[in-house]
């Protein structure tokens, strides 16, 4: 699993080397507070690193989830639209945001591993 400084996690799919599932960390979910709104991108959207791809709003404020690397959004977690609380309940599992096909898997090496992320927070 890889992590960004924006508190996203990326989990490579077992059977597809260039596909990652993306969500936010427990730390981020706790800091944001209860989520009440999630707006997801269209499947098939091509994104560049740091594009704002997801809008989330907690009880406190709105914020964005950025694309962690270049690639294409291939699947979104539609369950979040009706139940944004899934992100708070299970940020590393049922609270995932989207799956993306990574343009260059070498980009993943630039991200933090779990030990580095724990140090970062």
């Amino acid at each position: 699993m890889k992590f960004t400084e924006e508190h996203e996690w990326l989990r490579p799919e077992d059977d597809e080397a260039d596909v990652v599932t993306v969500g936010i960390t427990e730390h981020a979910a706790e800091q944001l507070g209860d989520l009440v709104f999630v707006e997801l991108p269209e499947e098939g959207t091509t994104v560049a690193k740091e594009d704002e791809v997801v809008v989330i709003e907690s009880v406190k404020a709105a914020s964005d989830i950025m694309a962690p690397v270049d690639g294409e959004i291939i699947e979104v977690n539609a369950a979040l639209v009706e139940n944004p609380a899934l992100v708070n309940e299970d940020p590393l599992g049922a609270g995932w945001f989207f799956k993306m096909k990574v343009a260059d898997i070498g980009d993943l090496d630039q991200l933090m591993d779990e030990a580095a992320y724990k140090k970062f927070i």
Partner: protein
Amino acid sequence: MADQDLMTTPLHALHAELGGRMVPFAGYEMPVQYAPGVMKEHVHCRSHAGLFDVSHMGQVILRPGSGDAADAARALESLVPQNVLGLAEGRQRYGLFTNEAGGILDDLMIANRGDHLFLVVNAACKADDIAHMRARLPGDVTVEEITDRALLALQGPDAEAVLESLAPGAAEMSFMDVRTLASDCGDLWVSRSGYTGEDGFEISVAADRAEAFARALLDHDAVAPIGLGARDSLRLEAGLCLYGNDIDASTTPIEANLLWAIQKSRRPGGERAGGYPGADVIGAQIDAGVQRLRVGLLPEGRAPMRAGTPIFAGEADTDPIGAVTSGAFGPSIERPMAMGYVSIDHSDVGTKLWGEVRGKRLPVTVQSMPFRPATYKR
């Protein structure tokens, strides 16, 4: 303001022990939430009872030299458009300090406690309110800021039973009654009121007994501590104004839809009409109406419309007809809610309007408030 400049309340250590996430608020370090978070705290308050530390608010006694609260009431009527003289002993009412332009300087609670009036004012305004009263009230009315007492609110359906167990007599009180009740933590100055739309109490307790009293309340399984985050979503569901957001010196009580808070005796034609700052402006608005009005706004989708969201009459209109002043997600109504000012032509309940969120026009409907009916014990 740097953290070391922040003031603290007598419950500061308890907040830390309870895991409160502390933030600066009106010059105080206050808990915005505890471990359960805003949503769970909100729901707990509506289903059981919530304990709020509101000790940052100003507690003020107006003490007349005569010992007759009516003399303080007569004096206070020169600063507020409320019928204070008609407020019976042991009763409380909502009030407003106004300025010469008819704007609102602060909103407050006014209680008649027999030989004096007891006021509760907003934390951010208290210094100005006290200076205003000292400058404007006659010399035989003393303005005493109470700094040796904490203020707690206990709100929710279980509040009555819990407070009655610690301070017998609480259960006999009705909404907006005020009483002094004896307890193991000394005399409590209790009003049956609050800022959540729930039945409940606000309780002034000696500062050095406040933590013990709060612990005694929290010993009840029904009572959980509630932070400022849920306090805000609770008050918005109840349709109550937040001073500085929904009302301020640029809004009049009539624009703010608070005519109900100006009793007939102080309106044009009443027996003590006018006689408060801005009475000419406010009186004219009572007679002739206003150009804009504070209304409830219910967004149709799930996207919250926050304070500052511009409101349009048409999906493609270029000029806004109003703006949101408070907006959040309502945990009990399970949808976003907002209040704001719209032009009078678009203020009827049911009017379909548009709010612009992140560049998109989203449908929103003018809605009567409260969003969730109050459960006061009348």
